[in-house]
């Protein structure tokens, strides 16, 4: 078990390193950064000054190792636009994105688990098919469009929820629902499949033979086993949600990391873009490791006892 975790950790570090490299390459794609930063009205002298100031006149390889070295120690550079350390910027915006992601995940689980269980228990009935239809619809839904629709209905017409900003916890409801929509189809399907398989297993037959209550059989015995892959996938889905938050944050004007990335791309603020890609990738890798750990925690057979 420990060996397994160590191996995963090594892979995680390698992935982070690769992403670091890719992020660096990404921001150097358009050729001359100095020209882009200096702007369209800059003279050649301005551009040269910019180049010197940001160390862009050094060889590419030097710049790369500088970036890697600094990033490993947590120094993600300085934002051209905000004139602040990038790590500070990200640190400021991260709580919003994390709150949004977790809200989305919680909503997704609150919807997927009961729906999946219901569909499994009523397998092949119209209820089951209705749940599957919901899953298919959810997968086809363009998230930004759903966000706008919700805004119109709940924000404008009904006036129940705020349509932008992060003033109160209600601000996270609509964006959370939209994020949840992206994860609900997969989680529901997984729960349903897992429950169907669990309910057909021998140990459930034993549980029935012991005269246990319906609720106990369903929730204590079956769900406990069916939920193992669901929990792991949920962690990974959170990773996707965090990565995809850029669209939602823009729609709902939430000033999180995604919004920051969006602004920075528009302003050619490369250090920020580079760093955000790296941070999100590292978080994702961390979540997949968490998923593995949870698998082991929840399934005694994997503990290698």
């Amino acid at each position: 078990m420990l060996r397994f975790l160590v191996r995963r950790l090594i892979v995680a570090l390698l992935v982070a390193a690769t992403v670091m490299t890719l992020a660096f390459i990404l921001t150097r794609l358009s050729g001359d950064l100095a020209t882009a930063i200096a702007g369209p009205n800059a003279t050649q002298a301005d551009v040269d000054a910019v180049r010197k100031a940001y160390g862009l006149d050094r060889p590419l390889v030097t710049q790369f190792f500088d970036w890697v070295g600094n990033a490993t120690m947590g120094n993600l550079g300085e934002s051209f636009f905000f004139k602040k350390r990038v790590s500070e910027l990200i640190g400021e915006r991260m709580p919003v994105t994390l709150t949004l992601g977790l809200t989305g995940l919680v909503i997704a689980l609150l919807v997927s688990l009961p729906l999946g269980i219901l569909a499994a228990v009523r397998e092949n009935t119209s209820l089951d098919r209705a749940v599957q239809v919901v899953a298919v619809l959810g997968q086809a839904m363009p998230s930004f469009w759903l966000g706008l629709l919700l805004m119109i209905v709940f924000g404008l017409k009904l006036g129940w929820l705020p349509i932008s900003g992060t003033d109160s916890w209600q601000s996270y409801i609509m964006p959370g629902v939209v994020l949840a929509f992206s994860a609900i189809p997969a989680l529901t399907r997984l729960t349903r499949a897992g429950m169907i398989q669990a309910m057909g297993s021998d140990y459930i037959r034993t549980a029935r033979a012991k005269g246990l209550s319906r609720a106990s059989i369903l929730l204590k015995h079956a769900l406990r086993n069916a939920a193992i892959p669901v929990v792991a996938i949920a962690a990974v889905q959170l990773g996707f949600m965090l990565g995809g938050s850029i669209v939602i944050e823009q729609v709902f004007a939430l000033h999180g990391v995604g919004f920051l990335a969006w602004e920075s791309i528009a302003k050619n603020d490369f250090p920020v873009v580079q760093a955000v890609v790296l941070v999100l990738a590292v978080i994702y890798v961390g979540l997949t490791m968490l998923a593995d750990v949870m698998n082991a925690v929840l399934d005694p057979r994997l503990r290698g006892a």
Partner: protein
Amino acid sequence: MKRGFRNVATWLGALIIGVAAFCAIFAPLLVPHDPFAQDLGKRLLVPFWMEGSDPQHVLGTDQLGRDYLSRLIWGCRISMLIGVTVSIVSGLIGITIGVLGGFLGGRVDDAVLFAITTRLAIPVVLVALAVVGLLGSSMPLLVITLGLLLWDRFAVVARSTTMQVATLEIALAILLEAALSFLGLGVPPPLPSWGLMIAEAKDYMFFSPWVIVIPGVALFVLVLGINLLGDGLRDLFGARSA
């Protein structure tokens, strides 16, 4: 029973795709107006089901007076084009990588798995945005970028060989393009990508909600159709190979 459901759903999907493909291919012949022609005297006309509509513009007009139905049909062409071309690009990349890994096994396979893991860690929308933001938006660039980002599912599946992933990829590509266009960094205006139409309409959505509802519904229905058809195909082929 379930098979019956699948049949209805699959046929529904096929129908939707058929209509979409027809619109995409014959768009120049089908559009009642030029989708790029502005008519500032006829801005934000309402669709036919609302009062005061203009029979010349069945689905109304947008904020620059362009006929909505024409833009919708043209946008279908764009979505379908994106879906197919991105899938081809990502499919080529992904299947090559996946087959290499599955076939050669050992270290090569490890490398393939590592590549897939890394690709999964990258926030796709963000990177696509960054690339387009840096290099300017154009159709070819968009297709290549998305193709380079979406190959993972093909690779995973090519390692273990099944078939229905193609439809998932197409759907995903279409949705991603719409999202990117919505954020302004996808297909360049004035091409009527449905995502772009929604973005342009966002400022008016509280007063004229149909401007975002119509293209959104179109997107949703198209992707739904692809999913349904894909599920149906999977049942067909998957069941046989089981």
